[in-house]
């Protein structure tokens, strides 16, 4: 696939992933109301593990084909789930402070953006370094301002 097509596919996939994230947050929020934040996250990780095992035929071959020597994969690359699970605990603590949900969300988005700028700048954790263009800054500003308006307009 030419680079331009991959870029378009990845951009569309990112939008779709964001929409899925909203659905996931909604479902896990309902579950947390039923059984608490820890139970909800535990359950989501458990059912997710089972779901991923059910589709082993979709990824097993891809791993065999990738041919990368297992030893070359750094151990820390397996710890994404660790960071994710810790995040759940931290945010459910912050939500119960005077920050409330909107404050926690806003600061969380800020943390994500600052980290991703640093990650691209220095190529953190083995992902290629990337130079951002002026247009990226414009797009980021538009999306952040738009998100703030939507959140404010929905309060």
């Amino acid at each position, binding site marked *: 696939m030419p680079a331009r097509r*991959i870029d378009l596919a990845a*951009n569309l996939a*990112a*939008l779709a*992933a*964001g*929409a899925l*994230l*909203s*659905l996931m*947050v909604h*479902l896990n929020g309902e579950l947390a109301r*039923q*059984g608490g934040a*820890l139970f909800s*996250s*535990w359950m989501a*990780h458990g059912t997710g*593990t089972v779901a*991923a095992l059910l589709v082993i035929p979709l*990824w097993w071959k*891809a*791993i065999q084909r*990738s041919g*990368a020597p297992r030893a070359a*994969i*750094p151990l820390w*690359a*397996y710890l*994404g*789930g*660790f960071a994710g*699970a810790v995040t759940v605990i*931290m*945010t459910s*603590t912050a939500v119960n*402070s005077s*920050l409330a949900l909107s404050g*926690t969300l806003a600061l969380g988005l800020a943390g*994500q*953006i*600052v*980290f*991703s*700028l640093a*990650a691209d700048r220095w190529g953190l*954790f*083995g*992902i290629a370094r*990337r130079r951002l263009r002026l*247009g*990226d800054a414009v797009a980021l*500003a538009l*999306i952040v301002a*738009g*998100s703030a*308006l*939507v959140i*404010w*307009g929905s309060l």
Partner: protein
Amino acid sequence: MIEAVVLAFVAGGLVGVSRQLNGRLAVSTSALFASFCNHLVGFVLLTAIGLVIGGLLRDGAFSGPWYIYFGGPVGVVFVALSSWIIGQIGATRSTMLIIAGQVLGGVALDWVLTGKPVSLTALGGIVLIVAGVLVAQRQRGPAN
């Protein structure tokens, strides 16, 4: 208060760290395998935490409607997608487009679930987000 601010900010940063790590694993294996590892590792950690502090299983935890137990499988698709995306378009562009999709999807979901009309302010926000996505789409270029 300042502790909560730091906590919420660092939690956001950790979302980025998690995406970066899963993306790195996906480069050497496959995006779905990275998603599987993400969920398995998280499940083991949360089980350990639940065993230590207790209170994991409350009465009525399993009495909700069936569909609220499907956040996990949705999450598997989400993590797999984002692990692939980050290797293609980098962290910043991934983050901003995922945020755009999340807010637009959230508005749509709210609208479907509550039927409440979208406010004029929110509508203005949607216009800005769509403009941002279009500007992002015009930016391209290989990693350097």
